[in-house]
């Protein structure tokens, strides 16, 4: 036993949030052919791809129409007002990066003919009901990525500072 050498080793204690725990999509054109979606979002437009050939509205955005395999797609503006199709509130079990936000509402919003999941800001669960109008809202991450949320109209109607 005295023959065996023991050595203390060190390791980095903290690391940046790794890719495999970072929910927000990579938005740079180095990583995705649909980076235009995020450019549009930065300008306040929630868009998706629509097939010019067969007319299919595709969500999430595509590079090829999954209905007819055409590459002729165009960006379609979904507008800024949606309607709550369903919702809940995260009270237990949030993933890393969202634990600090608990409780918060999430829901499925009917907008522009689609059903899109999203955070619903500006309301508690008890304040919401199916059919409520909600408005597009855009959040900016510290690293300059963006993502969409919705907020209940009440919040939305306040003047933006």
């Amino acid at each position, binding site marked *: 036993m005295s023959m065996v050498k023991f050595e203390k080793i060190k390791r980095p204690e903290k690391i940046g949030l790794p890719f*495999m*725990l970072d*929910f*927000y*999509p990579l938005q740079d054109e180095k990583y995705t052919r649909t980076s235009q979606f995020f450019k549009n979002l930065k300008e306040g437009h929630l868009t998706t791809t629509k097939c010019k050939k067969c007319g299919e509205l595709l*969500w*999430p955005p595509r590079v090829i129409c999954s209905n007819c395999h055409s590459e002729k797609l165009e960006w379609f503006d979904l507008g800024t007002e949606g309607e709550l*199709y*369903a*919702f*809940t*509130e*995260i*009270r*237990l*079990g*949030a*993933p*890393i*990066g*969202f*634990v600090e936000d608990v409780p*918060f509402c*999430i*829901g*499925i919003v009917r907008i522009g003919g*689609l*059903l*899109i*999941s*999203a*955070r619903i800001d500006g309301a508690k*669960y008890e304040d919401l009901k*199916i059919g409520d109008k909600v408005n597009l809202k855009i959040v900016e991450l510290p690293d300059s990525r963006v*993502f969409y949320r919705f907020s209940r109209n009440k919040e939305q109607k306040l003047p933006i500072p």
Partner: protein
Amino acid sequence: MRQVAIVAGGEAKAGRRAASWRDLVQEAGKALFEDVDNLSPKDVDSIFVGAAQPERFAFLSYVAPLVAEHIGVTPRKVIARTELACVSGQAAIRYAWNCVATGMSDIAVAIGVEKMYQPDMAEAQTTMTCVLDREWDGVNCFSAPPIFAVTAQRHMYEFGTTKEQMALVSVKNHHYSSLNPIAHLQKEVTVEAVLKSPMVAPPLNLFDCCPMTDGSAGVILVPAEEAKKYTDTPMYLIGSGQYAVGNVINNLANLAEWAPLKLAAKEAYRTAKITKDDVDIAEVHDCFTISEIMEYEGLGFCETGKGGKFIEDGKPYIGGKVAVNPSGGIMGCGHPLGATSIYHTFEILKQFRGDVDMGRYVKGAEIGIQHSLSGAANQHSILVCSRELR
């Protein structure tokens, strides 16, 4: 093309286990070969491993050879892991079945494993969230409880299903699991206790949800004509159905009605040459109470929207119209993702053998179905098992 039988099953105690994934696999492997005569690991030529996310839950990929190695099997015909989230285990059985049917394999093990407890449960929750489209739905925290919460909300909204009806599923399944020694949860609950349990994601309380569970279970498949060499009580695979629509929330068929389940059930009954009325035991995917209610509907046991009344009327109990989850289901036994379908398939074999507590025994059962769903309930898989070769 050969017909195929399951001749043995084995399982580790499910639960929050003070054990690693490889400990669990060894326990299931030992139990599996103790359950069969004249057959050792060395006779097995193929292994089909069901595992959902070992890459994250266990920081390990390529688990199939490690599983083989730990239970003493040397695969010389077929080996791979199958992943279909919560249905990974049934997918493994399905492929084993096909490979034995074609003759590519003669003696196959299908074994599932999932170790879900890890030091940081927020990390495990993160992992659960990448089962939905991580970039478009997972990012909004749509993991299992929230997607089934909105499903329940829509079912309540469209059909008037009540929280009390949902709670009855939890009460029933905890009752049966209290009689199942391998179950994760072995305590009964009351409707009141369900309704008073902490709210996870409204309208779902904690006891509307299955627990996080560690576990492993396996079965052995052989050609039907060889089955009696290994056991007096084989179980035959006689049909199956599977159907999937897109998993992105926008592309789901409908939140309140599971069309893919209806189509999978239709195909399962067609291929097995049975009707819904022939089903004696249904081991179904009760990951949440609302799921089982919608499965009564999707499997054709009652009309769409009437699932709540179906349990209120006592129909899915042993002695009712059809015994649903006499094992205690996922709600009571737990949900070690890659192993769940295999635990439930083995349950049907144990029922056929009469090898269960009499308080949860479905006497005289001839046909059992094992149903699993995955993702946003966009995909449904059904195996039809028969006590007799048909």
